[in-house]
């Protein structure tokens, strides 16, 4: 992997704005987030961007990197530099606060709208739920549980772009982990919540799965929800 020089075109402003160019050197092991930090520390302290963990855990550093959403703390400059340049913009499908910072409020509001919270039920559980490792429902939860809420899938999804009411892949992936949680008491009400403005609107084009930095497959979770929702409707439970 090479080191070299790169022209970083960085979005400045809010919804209206422009790209500002910075000419920088980069090292073979430097991440896109490091590059942005360097710009902010050495060239323009007014640049706004967001990060916390720098190791791919918190989900706060996602941006649009040369046209596609990525987690910038685990993306090497060397891997994305194209013809000596890289273009950095805030995540799409979300309002822009300033520079590289998108407003995540709609993302988390939809998470709530899709019932993303564990429901304990009215009465305390009388006994521990026994869940074995090879239980198929447990496996389905495992497949989706590592989501870091980075919003990459949300920014990548065509249906999110086209439909204001669509809750998006991450929220549905979360709902699927709860539907498969033996301890969750959400029941048919949870399924009704994910049907409307939810799983039925998905086009199954898998852009979410293609770009998810954690390698999750929200499309598969959504397909599972479609099956559950259909079964519930046929049984008259919705």
């Amino acid at each position, binding site marked *: 992997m090479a080191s070299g020089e790169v022209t970083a075109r960085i979005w400045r402003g809010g919804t209206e704005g422009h790209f500002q160019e910075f000419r920088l050197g980069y090292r073979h092991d430097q991440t896109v987030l490091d590059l942005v930090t360097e710009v902010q520390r050495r060239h323009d302290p007014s640049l706004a961007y967001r990060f916390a963990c720098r190791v791919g855990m918190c989900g706060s550093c996602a941006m649009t990197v040369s046209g596609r959403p990525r987690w910038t703390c685990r993306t090497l400059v060397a891997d994305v530099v194209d013809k000596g340049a890289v273009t950095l913009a805030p995540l799409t499908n979300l309002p822009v606060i300033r520079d590289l910072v998108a407003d995540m409020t709609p993302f988390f509001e939809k998470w709530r709208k899709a019932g993303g919270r564990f429901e304990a039920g009215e009465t305390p559980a009388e006994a521990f739920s026994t869940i074995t490792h090879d239980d198929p429902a447990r496996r389905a939860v495992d497949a989706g549980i590592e989501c870091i809420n980075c919003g990459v899938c949300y920014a990548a999804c065509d249906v999110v772009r*086209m439909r204001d009411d669509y809750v998006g892949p991450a929220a549905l992936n979360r709902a699927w982990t709860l539907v498969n949680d033996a301890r969750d008491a959400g029941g048919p009400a949870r399924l009704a919540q994910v049907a409307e403005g939810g799983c039925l609107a998905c086009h199954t084009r898998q852009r979410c799965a293609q770009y998810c930095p954690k390698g999750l497959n929200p499309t598969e979770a959504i397909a599972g929800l479609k099956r559950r929702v259909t079964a519930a409707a046929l049984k008259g439970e919705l």
Partner: protein
Amino acid sequence: MSARLDVWLWLAHRASGALLAPLIVAHLVTIVIAVQGGLDAAEIVARTRGSVFWGGFYFLFVAAAALHAGLGVRSFVAEHARLSNGPATAIGVVLGLVLLVMGGRAVAGLVL
């Protein structure tokens, strides 16, 4: 719009699509057979007039197409014209009814 109605419409869209596939194949095969020796209105009407089978076949075809197209356009305008569910459903219903009436008249003309 209730979640239940949404699910039923979604299912109807898939089911009508699944039904259309074999009907279209049968329709194409029938055309190929019917045009052997030239396209002749009298020959076609002779086959379909008074036939419960052809009447049922084409009416099912028309109903499935009207349902499928109406529901498809409903999603399409919701996405591309950014309409909310209510107006999008209204447009889909109107289109579906127009197709159903036009197709129904054509089938009646062949069979009755």
